[in-house]
């Protein structure tokens, strides 16, 4: 069996777009789970919130796609901020079991609430004309919308990396995560930093959900369906930097797209198996040195 080289490149391209999307969806989790060590299985619910903001604004109020994106960021960020201040912060010091139970509870509530408000059907969004279709670049079929995603997500990745490594906020965040007590002693407002980070991460997830509604699909079971993908990105990527999760999302995206194209009968089987193998061989993640 042979495939034309172009198909390979197209798959690679789609995989990269998918991976970038996964990264934007999951990077908030990389901070809460990876840096703050909080097992938050409800992360997908924030992504779903962003997706529904976009879908509802577009389909019911006729707001153009691009104009909905800021709101898809802001609304989940506010929800995240409120939840962090009221509920999540009480659980930072609790056992992982408590955190798991709590966040599963939140997921169940989010799924049922969205189902109740908007129905259980898929939400479809109509992309603007200039984002539809594919163009031919050097014989490779390139989807316009996927290029758009790659540009936006790529810019976000660079910005995040810069914020985390070059700004005062970034160094404070890293300090707060490394040792909250000492950080507090140095006058850093740790809980404010955690709240900001949590809200920002939720907002990014929301933005990812909005951008991904077209590619990943959007229905009330979204948080459960993609929970495992987010967790894979974070645990396989490791947690000390954002480059690890970024590489992991790219790998996962490419592997998933290629797997669905070449061996559709195997399904997600390969990804789950690979995840188990990686976690067993390198529990600290693929891209990190063992501690």
């Amino acid at each position, binding site marked *: 069996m042979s495939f034309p080289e172009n198909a390979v490149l197209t798959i690679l391209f789609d995989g990269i777009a998918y991976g970038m999307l996964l990264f934007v969806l999951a990077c908030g989790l990389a901070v809460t*789970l990876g840096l703050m060590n909080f*097992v938050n299985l409800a992360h997908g619910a924030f992504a779903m919130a962003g997706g529904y903001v976009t879908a509802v604004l577009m389909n019911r109020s006729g707001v153009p796609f691009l104009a909905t994106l800021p709101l898809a960021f802001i609304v989940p960020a506010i929800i995240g901020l409120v939840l962090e201040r009221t*509920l999540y912060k*009480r*659980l930072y010091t*609790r056992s*992982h*079991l*408590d955190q*798991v*139970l*709590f966040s*599963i*509870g*939140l*997921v*169940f*509530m*989010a*799924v*049922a*609430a969205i*189902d*109740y408000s908007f129905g259980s059907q898929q939400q479809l969004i109509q992309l603007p004309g200039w984002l539809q279709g594919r163009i031919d670049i050097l014989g490779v079929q390139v989807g316009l919308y996927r290029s758009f995603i790659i540009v936006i997500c790529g810019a976000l990745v660079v910005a995040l990396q810069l914020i985390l490594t070059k700004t005062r906020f970034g160094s404070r965040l890293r300090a707060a995560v490394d040792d909250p007590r000492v950080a507090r002693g140095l006058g850093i407002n740790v809980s404010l930093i955690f709240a900001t980070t949590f809200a920002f991460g939720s907002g990014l997830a929301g933005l990812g959900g909005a951008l991904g509604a077209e590619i990943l699909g959007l229905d009330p079971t979204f948080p*459960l369906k993609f929970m*495992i993908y987010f*967790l*894979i990105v974070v*645990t396989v990527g490791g947690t000390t930097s954002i480059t690890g999760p970024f590489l992991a999302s790219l790998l996962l995206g490419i592997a998933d797209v290629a797997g669905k194209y070449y061996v559709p*009968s*195997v*399904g*997600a*089987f390969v990804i*789950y*198996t690979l*995840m*188990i193998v990686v*976690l*067993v061989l390198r*529990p600290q993640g693929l891209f990190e040195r063992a501690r």
Partner: protein
Amino acid sequence: MSTNIADYVRTTLVRRGRWGIGEIAFWLIAAATLYFLPERHLILNEIVIIGLFALSLDLILGYAGIVSLGHAAFFGLGAYTAGILARDGLTDPLLGLAAAAIAAAILGFVTSFLVLRGSDLTKLMVTLGVALVLGEIANQASWLTGGADGLQGIAMGPILGLFEFDIFGTTAYAYSLTVTFLLFIIARRIVVSPYGLSLRSIRDNPLKARAVGIPVNRRLVAVYTLAAAYAGVAGALLAQTTQFVSLDVLAFHRSADVMLVLVIGGVGYLYGGLIGAIVFKVLQDVISAWTPQYWQFWIGLILVIIVLAGRERLTERVRTFWKGMAGRTAKTLPKTSAREV
């Protein structure tokens, strides 16, 4: 000195091993429902099965401290094993149970090595991954499992060649209850043995447990395998008494539900799973009668509230109450708890 401690441990264990009045009453009431609640046997059967499933999770979560998000893997494997055997003509229920227990135990043994390493998060992901892989296999191998349509055509023979399953679920309930009771006795015997003590010490402090010479990994492998077999039996009971298996038995929500059941009842004492199953099923019944489509919302809310209210405090209260019922007054026991011995 050492003999004193050994004696002390022995008497404590013997005392813990005694059956209290509350416990005896619990099982007598359970047996009495066979006669007094004939119209509820179908739901009671489900309660018992969920209770057994939660009991098996308690063995690894409550006693060994392994947080598992994929316990449905063993439940589902047991269900499919028993279901496929029955479909293909081996209709003896006990044979099905044994086969399911063995199959689940083998899977448990093999995967137990995966959960020995890493943090809580890694364990969580690996257990979840195992369940997902199994779900995918069951979905793809539709020639064997029926795929998304479910496994149909299960016809069970009479139990021991004597008792036919009836449509009111009475035989099914009696069967599930008996099996659960027998397995409960074994589990109870295990957790009050020195072996059970060593498990608790591993849960509380694995490092220290290793330092005092407990073979941590071997103990964990053993209890994980045992719990897997229990879950397999629970799954087999479900398959045999409902005569249907669908992909649902391997779904994520089943693993999440059983955790919820255990948490409602309380982690770390064997009745937690059984009590939790009763409360959960009754709640589910009441809520879904009221709002059939959205009962998950309320279950989620209950979960959040339980965690915020302090799960351990609630459990502690139930446990103290239970001990009082069981006639074991706290005053006669010195305050040293097992983990310090």
